[in-house]
Structures are given as C-alpha cells and as structure tokens.
C-alpha cells in the first residue's frame, strides 16, 4: 500500500505538473508532491522496520533493509531539493535563463525522475531495474540542457550518448544473467526476480555470471561515474541547473551503485571468488585518485564538487568491493551521508553562484560576511564532505579506512594519497570563497534556509549519534550482501 503510494505520487505529480506548467503554484505542487512521497517513504520504512523484508504487487516489488533506507533517502532529498528549487528556479526564471516551457518541463521531469529512481530501488525485477535506470537517464537529459547554451547542449549530448551506451552494456549483462538464470529457474518472468535469483545464486553458471558482471559493471559503473567511464559527469553537473546537479550526485549515483552492488551479490554467490570485488576495488581506487587530482585544477565550483562526487562514489565502490562486515557497513553509511552532505553543498553553491551570477570560483568571495547561512553552510558542508568529524562522512571513512588497512594494507597508501590530495584541493579552493570581505558585485538575496540546515543537522546527528534502527538495517543489509 505505502509502496504504491510511494510510486504513484511522483508519477501523478509529474502528470499534474505537466499540465500546470509555469503557473505560480507549480513549485508548491512540486513540493507538495515530493512531501507526500516522503511521507509515504517514512510509512514504508516503518512497515519494513516492524515487519521486516516484504514482497508486494505480486512478486514484482521487493523491499528489504538495503533498499528501504535508500528509498527514504531519495524521497527526502527530492523533497528538500524541491523546496530549494522553488526560490532558485524562480530567480532563474526572473533572470530569464529559462522560459515557461522550460519551467513546465522542469517540474514534470523532476517528478518523473524521482519516480524512475524509486522504481529502480523498489522493483524486484532486474529487467525493470534496467528500464527504470534508462528512464532516469532520459528524464534528466533534457533537464541538463535546460539552459540551451551551447555548453549545456554539449553536456547533455555527452550525458545522453555515454550513459546510453553504458546502459546498453548493462542490458547485455542482464540478458546474460537471464541466460544463466533460466537454466535454473525455468523460463518466464520469475527468472529475473531478485528474490529468486539470490535464492539460487549458488547454482548459477559462474562463467556466464562473471561475463555478465563485466557488462553490468561497465553499464551501471558509467552511471555511478567511475573512472574511466566518468567523463559525462562533470559536464552534466556543471551545466545543468543546480537542483538537478544536487539530485544527480545526491541520488542518481547512489541508485546506480545500488544496482551494481545487487548484481555483485549475485555474482559472488555464484562464483565464490573475490573477482567481482577486485574489479570494484580497482575502479573505486582509480576513481578516488583521478578525481582527487582533478580537484586540484578546477575553476568552476559545481564542476569541482562533481569531481568530489566521483571521488566519494569511488570510496563507496572500493568499500563494497573490499567486502567484510566493517567495510560494507561503512560503504552503506557512506552512501547515505555523502548524498545528504553533497546535495546540501550544491544548495549553498547554487545560492552562492546566484549571488555572484557566476560559477567561477575566483569571483565568489566573502560568503560568510555576505550571507552567513550560505557561507557557513558551504564551509561546514565541505568539512563534512572531506571527512572532518563530527560529521557522518568521517564515521564511514573511518570504518572503511581501518578495514582497508586490515584487509588490504597494500592499497592504503594510494587511498591515503587520494584522500589527502582531495582534502587539500577542496580546502584550498573553498577557503577563499567563504572568507574575506564582501566584493562589490555580490548581491544579497533571500535563500532557502531549511534544506541546508536540515541536511547538515542530519549529517551531524548521524555522525555523533546514529539512530539504532539505521544501525540494525545496515547490519541486516551487510548480512544480505556477504
């Protein structure tokens, strides 16, 4: 029931918004819809907390400890983003960067995007998962090119082509999966259901699965933004409207990683080797290093933070690849806190760039004096993202690093290098933006307080006092994934 609402609301809202278009009420409807989604998400979470994993809608939907928290996270961040985008997009509209078609389009697609992601999370079917993933891509492609500037179109094009190609690989992987599964489960729809696959994963054909994993890895890895498949990510983030950047790196990457991890669980169950894990560790580490060094030379603020998203996805991927109770726990936690912190950073960055009408970091100055919320928000957001306690990111990185030096000590120097460089780079860039005196061309403006505060508060709370139900879910998910 909750599940149907959770999926239905965004779809419905999308339809409504498509009709409402660029009226004054559209943002409020948007907020309302995502709020409803969020409430449904809470409800679902509660049900799962009480009753444990559950199938519903025939066998086509499946909720367990792994995806429920991601579902809640998705609905929550989409809600706050909607709140944020109300002010932000209005200002963009006033400034004439988007027309009314664009606005109509923006709101409708936003909700559609949320729906796609929730479908990814909740479906029990590998095929549907793939479809929803593609849907998520397609629904955001045109949002990236919303501003119609040459660079925006270029970015959107790259996003479209690269993700399309990637996703195609994923489909091939899925086909192979089915190919292997039907031997065991017989033909027909049941052969693609998680619940069945994970049940029989032991008896699936290892060679086929390891083959399939390569394609799934490349496919979903492209959407996770792992090096060297990441090239679409910085462009799309820097050129699209900020709310979209927020949800892209806050949510979409998580979803893709979620799909990848599910597949890994299957493959491990079949092959009984650490092969898949090794591949993921390799990708993760490469992403961390490359992203860290790319951070050093950024000029555009949103671009920089998109690189940091790559880095953090790399960390999570690495940790999942590493496996083991501590690392997996850390990775799950990392997905959560990263998306909270990163989206709040994008909120502040969006306001900052509107205050200066530029995304060039050389022009953004004196934020703390200019607008304390934006300034301190950005400062603390960055401290959170680089893994300074008492924010939650530190906790997850702490677990991951310690687990690494225990299980894979030879990897640690590289990891250390990556984290150190990323830290230095981010601080070096952000410090001048927040500190110093207010430049003449900075315009004061009203900002959306709630989202930033809410996110930072949550990250902080998770850092110093993690609620027990989350802990239990993580433990169950860990048990699920090993």
């Amino acid at each position: 029931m909750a599940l149907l609402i959770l999926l239905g609301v965004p779809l419905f809202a999308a339809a409504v918004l498509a009709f409402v278009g660029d009226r004054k009420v559209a943002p409020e409807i948007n907020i309302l819809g995502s709020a409803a989604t969020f409430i449904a998400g809470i409800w679902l979470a509660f049900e799962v907390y009480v009753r444990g994993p559950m199938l519903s809608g025939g066998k086509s939907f499946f909720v367990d400890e792994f995806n429920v928290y991601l579902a809640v996270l998705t609905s929550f961040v989409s809600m706050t983003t909607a709140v944020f985008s109300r002010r932000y997009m209005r200002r963009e509209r006033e400034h004439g960067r988007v027309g009314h078609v664009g606005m109509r389009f923006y709101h409708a697609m936003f909700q559609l995007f949320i729906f796609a992601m929730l479908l990814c999370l909740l479906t029990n079917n590998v095929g549907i998962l793939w479809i929803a993933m593609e849907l998520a891509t397609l629904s955001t492609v045109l949002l990236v090119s919303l501003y119609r500037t040459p660079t925006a179109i270029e970015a959107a094009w790259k996003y479209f082509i690269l993700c399309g190609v990637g996703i195609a690989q994923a489909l091939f992987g899925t086909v192979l999966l089915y190919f292997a599964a039907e031997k065991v489960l017989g033909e027909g729809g049941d052969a693609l259901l998680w619940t069945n696959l994970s049940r029989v994963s032991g008896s699936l054909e290892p060679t086929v699965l390891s083959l399939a994993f390569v394609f799934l890895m490349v496919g979903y890895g492209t959407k996770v933004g792992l090096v060297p498949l990441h090239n679409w990510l910085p462009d799309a983030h820097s050129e699209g409207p900020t709310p979209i950047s927020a949800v892209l790196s806050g949510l979409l990457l998580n979803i893709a990683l979620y799909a990848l991890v599910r597949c890994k669980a299957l493959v491990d169950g079949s092959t009984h080797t650490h092969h898949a894990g090794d591949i993921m560790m390799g990708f993760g580490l490469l992403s961390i290093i490359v992203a860290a060094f790319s951070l050093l030379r950024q000029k555009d603020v949103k671009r920089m933070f998109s690189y940091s998203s790559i880095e953090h996805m790399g960390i999570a991927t690495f940790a999942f690849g590493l496996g083991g109770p501590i690392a997996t726990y850390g990775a799950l936690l990392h997905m959560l806190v990263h998306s909270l912190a990163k989206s709040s950073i994008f909120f502040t960055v969006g306001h900052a760039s509107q205050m200066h009408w530029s995304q060039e970091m050389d022009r953004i100055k004196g934020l703390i004096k200019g607008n304390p919320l934006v300034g301190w928000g950005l400062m603390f957001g960055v401290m959170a993202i680089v893994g300074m306690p008492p924010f939650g990111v530190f906790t997850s990185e702490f677990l991951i690093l310690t687990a690494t030096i225990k299980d894979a000590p030879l990897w640690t120097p590289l990891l250390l290098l990556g984290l150190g460089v990323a830290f230095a780079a981010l601080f070096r860039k952000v410090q001048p933006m927040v500190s110093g005196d207010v430049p003449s061309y900075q315009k004061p403006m009203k900002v959306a307080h709630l989202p930033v505060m809410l996110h930072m508060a949550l990250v902080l709370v998770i850092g110093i006092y993690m609620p027990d139900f989350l802990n239990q879910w993580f433990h169950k998910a860990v048990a699920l994934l090993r």
Partner: protein
Amino acid sequence: MNLHLAAQIISFLAALVLLTAFGMLVQRRMYGLIHLFAWQGLFLSISTALVGFVAGKHHLYISSLLTLTLKVALLPYILHILVQRLRIHKEIETVVNVPTTMLIGIALVIFSYHLTAPVREISTLVTRSILAVALASVMIGLLMMITRKHAVTQIIGFLAMENGLFFAATSATYGMPLVVELGVALDVLIAAFIFGIFFFHIHTTFDSLDVEQMARLKEGD
C-alpha cells in the same frame, strides 16, 4: 518446418544482421546508412518471429511486431525526416579510415566468438550460437559511434547497438519476459524522441550536426 531448418534460417539471418552491421560501419552516405539500419531491423524482427515460432513463445511475436514498427518503420522514417529537414545528405567523413575500421570490426567478431565460447558450451538452445553475433554487433555499433563524428551517425550506431542487444534478448535466450521487452521498446521510443529534439537543438546552436565542435567542456589549462 523442423527445428533444424529453423535453426539454420535463424543463423542465416544472424549472418545477415552481422553483414548489415558491417555495412553500416563502412557506409559513407546518410541515406544508405538509414536503409541499412532498416534492413537490420527487418532481419531482426523476422528472426525474432522465427524463434518465437520454434520455441512456441507467442509473446515473441509481439516483440517482433514491435521491432518491425519501431526499427523498420518508425525510426528510419524519423531519421529520414530529420535528414531532409536539416539538409544533411553530404558524405560523412570518418575519423579512422575504412579499412582499419573493417579490420577492427573483424577482430571484434573473433573476439566475441571466443568470448561466448564457454557460454555456448553450457547452453542447450538451438539459437545459442547467436549470442556471439549479438555481442559482435553490439561491439560494432559502439565502434561505429567511435569512428563517426556526426550526430546522426552516432545515433544510428547507438540504435545498431540496441539492435544487437535486442537480438541477444530475443533470439539468444528465447526472449526475455514480455514486460522487459515492452519496457525496452518504450525506452527506445523515448530515446528516439529525445535525440530528435536534440538534433534540432544542436543544429540551431551549432548550425551543423558535427559533434567535433562539441568539445568545449574540457580541462583546459
């Protein structure tokens, strides 16, 4: 019509699909490309229908129909319109010269054959050998996207990949569940619309569909 014969026909069709893929790889003229793409779609749908007949999977007929409408009729039509609208029926220059491309393509075929060998061992289906062809055409589609620097051709390459996938999905495995196939088809449709929109955007902003000029976003010093 016995199984053996059907299998032979199907593999013959597979060969044709592969051939058309190669044809697209080397074809220089836009219309030629589109026609080849349509042909590939046709072979695809026939083989799908055939597999459905052999395996007694009636939902495969639906997907074959889908293929027919989408990839033989609709998409080529859209592309045709676009090409006319945007007046791009000039010769398409490739990044790498043709013979090299061919060689790479052949290497890919061999590679994918070698790759799917273990899978072929374990499968019992008549159509198991098709997997190699499907993989090959996916790879060739990707190769085509790499070697061409025109938006439309890239899209066609993309669709060719899609074809390969579809081939694998339907023929190699006696068809995925219907939901999945419908969804895939839907996605392809949406994709078609989106790139349609894109062509106009690109054309209006860059007044040509050459992707070479879309290289501004980079880590310049």
